[in-house]
């Protein structure tokens, strides 16, 4: 019995030695002057929010491909290094560390979920590597430090516009809020909505909470139903929202449910069912129905590359995050962290797929939002709300 065990142990040790050898030669390689510009990305390519990660990743990839086809940056090709965090907490910081120290990336792109952007941001900040989040909307993300940027609007704006929307379009005086306590995005958006809605003279009749990944929401929804709200705000991510909307309809809740950009995924339709989603609304960054020429070009290019798939807001923002970075590197004439940072901070009216991007003193973008509804089993554009 002992003999084979020793053999296994020896094999394992040999394997470890091999691994150690690999990583050593890897770091030797990256120490040489690079003939490519390495851009890193961490994304939720699998797991709970995989649709977000995949869309954003596809947009990012398309942008890098287009830039390389046009000759790259500063005479060098862009090399794209990315890793999957499986939509779980605790992975993004490790990935950011690995991309920065081992792969020697010049800039970091990611994530959609604010919670995971917040994990990676301190590491990028400490290493003086500029980080651009394509679509994390929680204000805390860029508050981490002066190397952290984003190309999307932030939740105080989204919360305010949802409050206006509830008041004006839905004519709702009494709203119930049902938020995910495990996601900073959801907690933040609920808070900003509450502040604006109360200031507008609205009334919040019930505040219920859930934990992302829960499957049974009937107890909370029953409690919400008993307070007779005019509408229910659910600032969550699509996998949970899908179940919430379906269970709300099962319990006979007929009022409108609405939320933020966390809803934007085709899976929402599959999980909740088109009938349950009828008359629900969400705000987001981009509509493929936009008539702006750059947006049109992006939609056409995206469709050509990905077999006719229509891009969503996450894809458009992923695309814009690369374009804004490339523009800054060009203007800086260098890939040194501090220089790229300064150039990024000076970004003004950069034309992209989601409209003109201007990064303000807090390194956030100010952009219009669009409202989407589900009507006759399809996602449909309702209106654009300017900041």
């Amino acid at each position, binding site marked *: 019995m002992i003999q084979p065990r020793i053999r296994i142990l020896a094999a394992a040790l040999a394997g470890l030695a091999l691994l150690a050898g690999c990583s050593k030669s890897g770091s030797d390689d990256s120490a040489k002057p690079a003939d490519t510009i390495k851009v890193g990305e961490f994304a939720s390519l699998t797991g*709970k929010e995989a649709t977000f990660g995949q869309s954003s990743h596809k947009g990012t990839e398309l942008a890098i491909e287009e830039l390389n086809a046009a000759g790259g940056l500063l005479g060098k090709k862009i090399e794209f290094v990315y890793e999957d965090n499986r939509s779980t907490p605790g992975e993004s910081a490790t990935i950011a560390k690995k991309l920065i120290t081992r792969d020697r990336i010049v800039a970091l792109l990611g994530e959609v979920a604010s919670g995971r952007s917040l994990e990676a941001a301190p590491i990028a900040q400490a290493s003086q590597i500029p980080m651009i989040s394509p679509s994390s909307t929680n204000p805390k993300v860029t508050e981490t430090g002066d190397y952290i940027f984003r190309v999307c609007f932030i939740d105080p704006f989204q919360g305010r516009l949802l409050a206006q929307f509830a008041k004006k379009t839905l004519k709702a005086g009494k709203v119930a809020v049902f938020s995910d306590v495990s996601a900073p995005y959801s907690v933040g958006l609920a808070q900003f909505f509450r502040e604006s809605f109360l200031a507008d003279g609205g009334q919040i009749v019930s505040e219920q909470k*859930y934990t992302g990944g829960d499957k049974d929401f009937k107890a*909370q929804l*029953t409690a919400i139903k008993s307070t007779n709200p005019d509408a229910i705000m659910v600032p969550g991510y699509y996998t949970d929202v*899908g179940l919430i909307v379906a269970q709300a309809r099962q319990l006979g809740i007929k009022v409108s449910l609405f939320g933020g950009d966390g809803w934007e995924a085709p899976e929402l339709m599959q999980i909740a069912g088109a009938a349950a989603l009828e008359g629900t609304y969400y705000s987001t960054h981009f509509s493929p129905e936009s008539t702006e020429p750059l947006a049109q070009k992006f939609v056409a290019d995206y469709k050509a590359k990905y077999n006719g798939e229509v891009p969503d807001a996450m894809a458009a923002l992923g695309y814009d995050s690369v374009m804004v970075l490339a523009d800054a590197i060009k203007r800086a004439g260098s890939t040194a962290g501090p220089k790229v940072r300064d150039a990024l901070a000076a970004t003004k009216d950069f034309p992209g797929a989601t409209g003109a991007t201007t990064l303000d003193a807090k390194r956030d973008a100010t952009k219009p939002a669009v409202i989407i509804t589900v009507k006759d089993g399809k996602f449909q554009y309702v209106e654009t709300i300017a900041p």
Partner: protein
Amino acid sequence: MTELLQQLINGLALGAIYALIALGYTMVYGVLRFINFAHSDIFMVGAFAGYYLSRVAPQASVTAGVFVLLGSMAICALLGVIIEKLAYRPLRGRSTLTALITAIGVSLLLQNLGQRVFGANPKSFPVLFPQHYFQFDSGLVIASTQILVFVVTIVLLFSLRHIVLKTRIGTAMRALSFNPTAASLVGVNNDRVISFTFALGSALAAAGGILYASNYPSIDPLMGTLPGLKAFVAAVLGGIGNIAGAAVGGLVLGLVETTVVALGGSTYRDAVAFAVLILILLLRPNGLLGKRQAEKV
């Protein structure tokens, strides 16, 4: 009043699902004195088997639903037998700790294999049985899927009791549980009986998986973990090894969780469920119905 009744229904429906999963846990424990931690992952495989089987069955008819349910139960029964043969049988006679750790290993294997084979993204589970909502004037709503869970749980509960108490194989299971050596001396084929026990337990897990997914139609390879743990709590609560205890434990746990959420403590939902486990272990280690030894399988 309506709200109270609705919450009662919510709690009982949730509890019935826990009870259904707990049945399999408790039966395997009753016979083998072994907690099969891979049970919750067989539950997951059951849901995925249903997901793929439903593609060949016409949607939302009673016959198709029964076909998918039975097909998935058969697949998982086979899986249970294979797992027992490959992972647990070579360790029989070793300490219970060895078997327990192996069970955790099998659980991790199934989870990660599931992520590889089925993909890590949540999938939406199709509608298997025709759905209907019974609306009452007071605003009370009962879904047909909730009633289905009750009916299936009760049917399986009584069939299981019948198998264990009234059939030859059931007698063999009880003999084995009482004393394996003596059982084999009087002509019980222990290997066959243990295989059968695992087949039965895994089929119950599959039924739980299908019904869970019908109620909460988003499935992923890690979906088994939390309901599995809750069902384990339910089994211990009712008295592990006791079939009726699993049902009682499940219902109590479902009601406790719903009460906690209804009172506004939704963030403490899981914490309370596990606090119940600790309390029961401290105050009544044999569980609520654990005293009556004769009822044990």
